[in-house]
């Protein structure tokens, strides 16, 4: 870019008239006065290497806090020598997802099948134990890995249920239709926290006295059902957008209700609402820290615990920035991916 170009760019974009000029200068001034001091605190004066809080003397950020607690932030209180099991489960998951991008479209359904039906079993056995592996109780699970586990479980639980509810809402059978409508409206009308309280405190009272369902499982199922109502609403939007001719064509070919929906209607409907679905799953991911309220500690919970450790008081800012970066990164990544999908599937001409 040469000098003339820069000049005209500045004129058009920053100083087009007198009030724009004033606003630009004021904002630039504010930015220039905040950012250097933040960089100074976060990087230049910060301490990165050390073992205790006493190593942080420079007055900047104390990233030692993150370093020392890193393992706890990622794995919670999962026993050290069993950590490979969590890692292995996540490596399998990541490899499967990556491979889905490179294989032929014909194989993709098998990968999906593996992810929904087989991988959860493998993951559960690896992380929880069984088949010769030592049992690790769910109450020591925690940290970022728990965040991901809950999100993953929520998705594979909420998606099929949401599809059924969406179909049910459009059913011709009145009992099924109104039951599904009431079900979805109920779960969408209450906050997630009340669901978590209900799962953690109220639900055991509703089961026979000697049964004992794991708290994490109760909470995860509660979150899954909660999310399925939102999934149902998104998919219903896709079903509504399909022209009637699709149903009529399928019926005239003699397809049954289920065949018509699973082969003709749903594939098209889900494709159109894929962005809405990913948004729902991002919301689920961002909602997982709420389990702190029923005493389960995922990433944010672990940071909260660490910052109130008497040796590490006053580290809240560093901790929250760390959590913020991780959550922001994954949410932003997914939402950008959604936008690219939207462009890919958009049939409008630009």
């Amino acid at each position, binding site marked *: 870019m040469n000098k003339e170009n820069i000049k005209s760019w500045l004129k058009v974009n920053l100083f087009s008239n007198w009030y724009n000029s004033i606003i630009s200068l004021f*904002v630039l001034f504010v930015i220039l006065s905040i950012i250097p001091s933040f960089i100074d605190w976060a990087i230049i004066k910060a301490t990165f290497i050390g073992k205790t809080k006493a190593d942080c003397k420079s007055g900047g950020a104390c990233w030692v806090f993150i370093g020392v607690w890193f393992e706890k932030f990622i794995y919670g209180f999962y026993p050290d020598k069993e950590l490979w099991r969590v890692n292995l489960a996540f490596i399998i998951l990541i490899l499967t997802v990556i491979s889905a991008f490179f294989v032929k479209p014909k194989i993709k359904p098998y990968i999906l099948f593996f992810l929904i039906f087989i991988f959860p079993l493998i993951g559960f056995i690896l992380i929880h134990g069984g088949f010769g592996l030592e049992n690790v109780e769910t109450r020591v699970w925690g940290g970022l890995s728990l965040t991901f586990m809950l999100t993953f479980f929520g998705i594979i639980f909420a998606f099929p249920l949401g599809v059924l509810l969406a179909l049910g809402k459009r059913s011709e*059978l*009145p009992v099924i239709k109104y039951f599904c409508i009431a079900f979805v409206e109920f779960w969408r*009308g209450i*906050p997630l926290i009340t669901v978590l309280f209900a799962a953690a405190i109220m639900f055991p*009272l509703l089961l026979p006295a000697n049964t004992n369902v794991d708290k994490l499982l109760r909470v995860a199922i509660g979150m899954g059902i909660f999310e399925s109502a939102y999934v149902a609403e998104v998919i219903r939007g896709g079903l509504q957008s399909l022209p009637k001719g699709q149903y009529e064509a399928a019926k005239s070919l003699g397809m049954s209700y289920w065949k018509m929906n699973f082969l003709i209607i749903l594939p098209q409907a889900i494709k159109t609402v894929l962005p809405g679905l990913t948004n729902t799953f991002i919301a689920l991911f961002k909602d997982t820290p709420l389990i702190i309220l029923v005493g389960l500690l995922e990433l944010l919970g672990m940071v909260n615990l660490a910052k109130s450790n008497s040796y590490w008081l006053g580290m809240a800012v560093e901790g929250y920035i760390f*959590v913020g970066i991780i959550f922001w990164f994954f949410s932003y990544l997914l939402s950008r991916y959604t936008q690219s999908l939207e462009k890919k599937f958009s049939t409008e001409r630009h």
Partner: protein
Amino acid sequence: MFLNSEFKTSLKKNLQLSNLIPQLLLILFFFFIIYFFANNAQLNMKARNMSSGFDFLGTNSGFDIQFSLIDYDGSSSYGRAYLVGLLNTLLVAFFGIFFATILGFIIGVSRLSSNWIINRLSLIYVELFRNLPLILQIFFWYFTVLRSLPSTEKSLIIFNFLIINLQGFYIPKFIFTNSHYIFYGIVFSLLTIFLIKYYANKMFYEHAKVIPVLKISLFLIVVFPVIFSLIGGVTINVEYPKLVKNFGIFNYLGGVKLIPEFLALVFALSLYTSAFIAENVRAGILAVNKGQKEAAKSLGFNNSQSLNLIVIPQALRVIIPPTTNQYLNLTKNSSLAAAIGYPDLTGAFAGTALSQTGKAIEIIFIVMMTYLTISLLISLILNWYNKKIALVER
């Protein structure tokens, strides 16, 4: 005749065996689940010697709530604790919605600004606040920002109007006498505005005359309450917070104290929700076809006429439904109050009252039903509005 035959065919369809069986199964399953849960609950209660029912609402709660809009102390009933919590929820929701709307509109318009730096900054704002978990934002405000405020002796004092310290924000309290006259004034001005609006519509459609209803309304809603309060003899006393030393500890007394829990919630909720509202506003403005503005111009509308009569009404049609949804989300999200101990419906009632009484089923039922009622009310209003503004296509 047509309706009748349609009804008959649908009845016939429902009575077919293949359609009847799944519906019957669902009903049976539903009642079985209800029976299963109710039976277990009863047995469990009996085994633990607990009584069930809602009688506890009338008994003394025995715990104090530090922030309440109505009189409340330990000798008040659980029912009153519920009311305190509900009012606190509505209070946070009200202020959250108020600030989120203002911020959201400013940011949304800035997203479309031709000024590059404003444009980029508002984009960063939106991407930052909507991609961070709300509970993290609440913790951030509560545990870091509000905890780093100066102590009571070194309070920040802004124009003697706002006092900021670790204990919270203090503002003067306005004490009205004969305040009901102001209320009469507002009711009277609303009635007048309603009539003027009716008259303006008539003038617009029958004589093509535009009456500036908004300006007149804004004028009236200020003037009538003032006139009414002059007639009724309304007086305003301002009570300023005062620094008092008690047993060697400084404290502000008097005025209105906004506790840090309340502030953190309002800050976090309004910033988080404003990012979503900003996107709605942006989409709404973009949705108005460029041709509309050009058509207005070619009809001889001036800039403000085209904005007021053509662009804004069409943009609002797109903006309002998703924004109402955001209001609903904000109200439900205010339940995160429980995480920092703000005594709202979830914090005070589903938290403290539940742990004291152990009436998990009853209390969670009440709390869920309360939120459900609020949600359904808002979506009823939204549906009514959507029907009213739906484009009538020929």
